[in-house]
């Protein structure tokens, strides 16, 4: 427990001994919310504690359990008393370490252990036979525990379940899985109390419902932690020329360095791993004082990340450049400055990241935002305003994933036989599945049972037996074993280890990036310049050697969406020139120029500019709906423009705008953005898009249709791979309504394709009206997006054929054969998996 516990005059310390003495010896008095949590425990109520980081939340969660356990007459016979679930393995391990201090100092007869993917087999075995009083674990390890028949005895004695960082789990697939596991725990230990711990969130009711065993917020006592002191936040007013486009912020590296030098310990947050690598390089290039600056991101080897975390905890570092890999986790009281490079993309994320500094309730957090381009200045400013107004963003969590449900049902069948009716009731008690209809549930159950295909000849192969007494049970021990090896809802992009020639593993890069490298290419990884030597059986071999123009690994996952709330604020700021006064002069001037040459985008409604440039016509829409929705919008706009005969050639999208270019100008702009756009075109495009294919692959892995690549099971050398795409194509063609395709569409619509947000935007444009400006040249506000042209590629069948044509045309000689007719036959394969 990181937190400092400050002496406060109230409330009175009514703790029992030895706790009262232990607190007093440290000059500590329990926080009011810690007392309130005890009161909830004494009343036997479920509780949700919402407090900013550094509020003593974790101790508040555990204190009642410690007091309860300390008072037991026969602790040895108590069994498992408290289960703690955290999204991070490292957090579970850290909490275990921190709990041992008070337990040892008060000489309490309490045994605390962790159980994660790293726990050795013999300790797991021992834990099953002789459970600790307090077990700290992750959602995945809990799901695995629940899949064993022994779960009935193991959890029977459970009194309290503590869910840490609940805000980071609710609304994700890991959260869906945890909610289902909690529903099962409510059957195994009906009296166990649930305690959620959360950072401040925009939707506290939804989070309370998520914590509740009945999916209703009413039966969870809500406790608010003390408010943190107002943070001190500024935007870096760069002396450099503020870039028009780009997202790396390298122009500001010398200024960031100066801030690091002035501060004690600095956390530098960036938004992508590529940006982390580049900025880290740039900081070291100017590191005249040899300051200890480290790098931390999710692709680095675990050992290396751990080293950085430990050095940070010891206070041995002056700065760490990190991605969201450090958003959660162990708290470092020593951090006194947080620098966010690039926009935070949401007010809540900014709040949490800033909360990592000055980790004391009485000390203000100090933070500096570094916009990477002009639009980002606006976004950063709006995020700060949001933060000061204590508004938060975030949608209420959506319905739970059907792939997660399928995995869970299989896990329960591995533990014990069940009936469909009882299982349905159990699942509906969890918030993500509270509105699940019976027909969908039955389809998922049938999928688990025998694949759920309409083709009847297939029914002889099954994973569950439906027995005469109406119960379902797992078909064989082999099926159960395979299931347990595939538990979990995190599906990583396929990666390859990066290993030094005759040396250690440095980390992992996405397979996709590895295939783009040629021997002799250099790339930046882990802050080093590496030379690609070649692919070995299952790894990428590299040596340390400087090279020219390094490539930067691309990571499919690194981009965070721009929240609706922040988008609203940015649009309001643009519309109101009075609010530009304190903007950097470069930015204010840019906006004034836009006002003069065109018009500013309205808060409601939509500005569309059209202008010629070179031999093309450009259309720029200031839609502010986020990159994902814009990608979808781009596909739909180009389809419509094709039908209008204007000859669309391509598009590019950012979080703020979308630009489409074509041979001829668009005449009917209002018709182009008509709300009925979300009809057949959307469906047709979605089905073909690579986003759907990627989503299907994830759904198929989580639902157990295809298996994960297991470490050690990869074939070496000659490897025949078999793509999830092939399965997608076959299933889509013959059973378009299969439950896994429904699950895929639901996931894609909510995520990468962001149909909901697109619909909201189209509605706003329709009600607010469309302002169409025909200009004779590019407007100031359109410059940034036009600079992105050529950096982004559009994925569609036609684009693939065009690229292949272009590649073939690059070749000398007569290799390019005449095109021949024929239907769509072959397939371009993505994301192959071994099968």
């Amino acid at each position, binding site marked *: 427990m990181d937190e400092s516990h400050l002496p406060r005059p109230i409330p009175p310390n009514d703790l029992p001994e030895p706790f009262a003495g232990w607190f007093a010896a440290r000059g500590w008095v329990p926080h009011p919310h810690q007392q309130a949590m005890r009161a909830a425990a004494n009343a036997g109520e479920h509780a949700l504690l919402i407090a900013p980081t550094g509020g003593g939340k974790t101790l508040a969660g555990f204190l009642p359990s410690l007091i309860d356990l300390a008072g037991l007459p026969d602790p040895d016979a108590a069994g498992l008393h408290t289960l703690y679930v955290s999204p991070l393995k490292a957090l579970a391990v850290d909490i275990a370490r921190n709990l041992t201090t008070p337990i040892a100092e008060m000489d309490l007869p309490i045994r605390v252990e962790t159980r994660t993917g790293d726990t050795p087999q013999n300790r797991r075995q021992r834990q099953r036979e002789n459970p600790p009083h307090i077990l700290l674990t992750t959602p995945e390890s809990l799901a695995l525990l629940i899949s064993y028949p022994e779960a009935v005895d193991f959890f029977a004695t459970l009194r309290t379940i503590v869910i840490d960082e609940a805000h980071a789990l609710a609304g994700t697939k890991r959260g869906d899985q945890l909610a289902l596991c909690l529903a099962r725990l409510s059957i195994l230990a009906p009296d166990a109390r649930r305690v959620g711990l959360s950072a401040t969130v925009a939707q506290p009711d939804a989070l309370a419902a998520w914590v509740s065993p009945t999916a209703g917020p009413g039966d969870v006592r809500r406790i608010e932690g003390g408010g943190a002191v107002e943070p001190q936040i500024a935007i870096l007013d760069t002396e450099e020329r503020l870039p028009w486009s780009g997202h790396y912020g390298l122009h500001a590296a010398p200024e960031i360095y100066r801030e690091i030098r002035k501060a004690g310990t600095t956390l530098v947050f960036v938004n992508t791993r590529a940006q982390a690598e580049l900025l880290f390089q740039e900081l070291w290039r100017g590191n005249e004082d040899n300051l200890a600056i480290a790098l931390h991101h999710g692709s680095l080897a675990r050992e290396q990340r751990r080293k950085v975390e430990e050095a940070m905890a010891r206070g041995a570092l002056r700065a760490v450049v990190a991605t969201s890999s450090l958003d959660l986790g162990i708290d470092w009281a020593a951090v006194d400055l947080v620098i966010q490079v690039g926009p935070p993309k949401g007010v809540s994320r900014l709040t949490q990241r800033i909360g990592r500094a000055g980790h004391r309730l009485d000390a203000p957090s100090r933070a500096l935002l570094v916009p990477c381009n002009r639009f980002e200045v606006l976004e950063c400013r709006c995020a700060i305003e949001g933060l000061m107004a204590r508004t938060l963003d975030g949608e209420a969590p959506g319905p739970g994933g059907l792939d997660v449900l399928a995995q869970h049902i299989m896990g329960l069948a591995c533990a014990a036989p069940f009936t469909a009716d009882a299982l349905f009731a159990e699942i509906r008690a969890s918030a993500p599945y509270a509105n699940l209809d019976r027909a969908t549930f039955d389809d998922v159950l049938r999928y688990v049972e025998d*694949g759920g*295909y309409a*083709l009847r*000849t*297939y029914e002889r*192969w*099954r*994973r569950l037996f439906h027995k005469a007494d109406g119960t379902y049970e797992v*078909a*064989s021990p*082999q*099926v159960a074993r*395979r299931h347990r090896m595939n538990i979990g809802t995190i599906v990583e992009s396929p990666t390859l280890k990066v290993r030094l020639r005759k040396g250690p593993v440095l980390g992992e890069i996405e397979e*996709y990036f590895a*295939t*783009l490298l040629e021997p002799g290419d250099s790339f930046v990884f882990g802050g080093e310049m590496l030379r690609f030597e070649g692919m070995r059986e299952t790894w990428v071999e590299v040596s340390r050697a400087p090279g020219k123009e390094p490539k930067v690994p691309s990571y499919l996952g690194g981009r965070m969406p721009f929240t609706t709330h922040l988008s609203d604020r940015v649009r309001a700021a643009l519309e109101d020139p009075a609010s530009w006064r304190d903007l950097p002069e470069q930015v204010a001037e840019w906006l004034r120029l836009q006002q003069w040459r065109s018009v500013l985008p309205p808060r409601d409604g939509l500005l569309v500019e059209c202008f010629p440039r070179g031999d093309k016509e450009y259309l720029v829409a200031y839609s502010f709906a986020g990159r994902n929705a814009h990608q979808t919008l781009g596909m739909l706009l180009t389809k419509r423009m094709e039908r209008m005969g204007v000859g669309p050639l391509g598009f590019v999208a950012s979080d703020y705008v979308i630009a489409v270019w074509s041979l001829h100008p668009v005449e009917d702009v209002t018709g182009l953005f008509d709300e009925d756009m979300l009809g057949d075109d959307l469906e047709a495009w979605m089905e073909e898009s690579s986003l759907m294919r990627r989503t299907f692959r994830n759904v198929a892995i989580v639902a157990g249709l*295809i*298996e994960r690549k297991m470490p050690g099971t990869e074939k070496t050398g*000659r*490897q*025949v*791979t*078999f*793509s999830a795409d*092939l*399965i997608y*194509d*076959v*299933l889509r*063609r*013959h*059973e378009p309504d*299969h439950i896994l395709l429904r699950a895929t569409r639901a996931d894609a619509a909510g995520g990468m394709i962001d149909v909901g947000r697109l619909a909201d935007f189209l509605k706003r444009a329709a009600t607010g009206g469309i302002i169409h400006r025909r200009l004779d040249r590019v407007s100031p506000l359109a410059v940034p997006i036009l600079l992105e042209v050529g950096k982004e*590629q559009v994925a569609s*069948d036609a684009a*693939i054929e065009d*690229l*292949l*044509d*272009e*590649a*073939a045309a690059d*070749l000398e000689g007569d*290799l*390019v*054969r*005449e*095109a*021949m*007719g*024929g*239907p769509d*036959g*072959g*397939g*371009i*394969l*993505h994301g*192959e998996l071994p*099968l």
Partner: protein
Amino acid sequence: MSTISLAPTLHLNGTALIAEPSGALYWPARETLVVADLHLEKGSSFARRGQLLPPYDSRTTLSLIADAIRRRRPARVICLGDSFHDGEAAARLAPDDADAIRRLTGSSDWIWIAGNHDPVPPETLGGRVVTDALVDGALIFRHEALARAAPGEVSGHYHPKAAITQRGRRLSARCFVEDGRRLILPAFGAYTGGLNVLDPAIAALYPNGFRVHLLGPRKVHGFPRARLLRA
């Protein structure tokens, strides 16, 4: 279905052939359609082991062959082996899929060349079985390429695929591989994966280099070996 080109895309041992984007090969002079590695009932072979892949792979493969037959109206169809994923595949076929095969085999001179997955192709589905190789004019058809073969060999077995990059994007697809003397077809089956042509297992068969014909969505695109990516 757009127009049918009769322009040859490659020459093998002096014989003009058309590589289709479907993965089938057409020999206009002999009105012969050639497909490799159908792996019928591969889905159900996974299901048998507890992995319940969608069972529609056989009917997908069969309908793709039926499309190719409708386009070309061949007098003869040669399946280059591994047409059935295993010895029990024929018994697992859904009745209407078995009927579809009988209709296909009845529509032309249908030849099943035996492969390592189907050393004894089923006799109940029509067509005739060739256990070793079929020689016709300048070409010889067999399942797996011989280390030393006379020019004109057409085979399958290796499921070749290839990848290139263009503008930073990786494009990977099934492909034909040939050097003018020997041709390896891509796998035609709906659930057949691929092996990169740069893998020694394939590359060793072409000591003097090779060209690939990559299957695009609507066209076949030729590339020399130097343009290809590993993995």
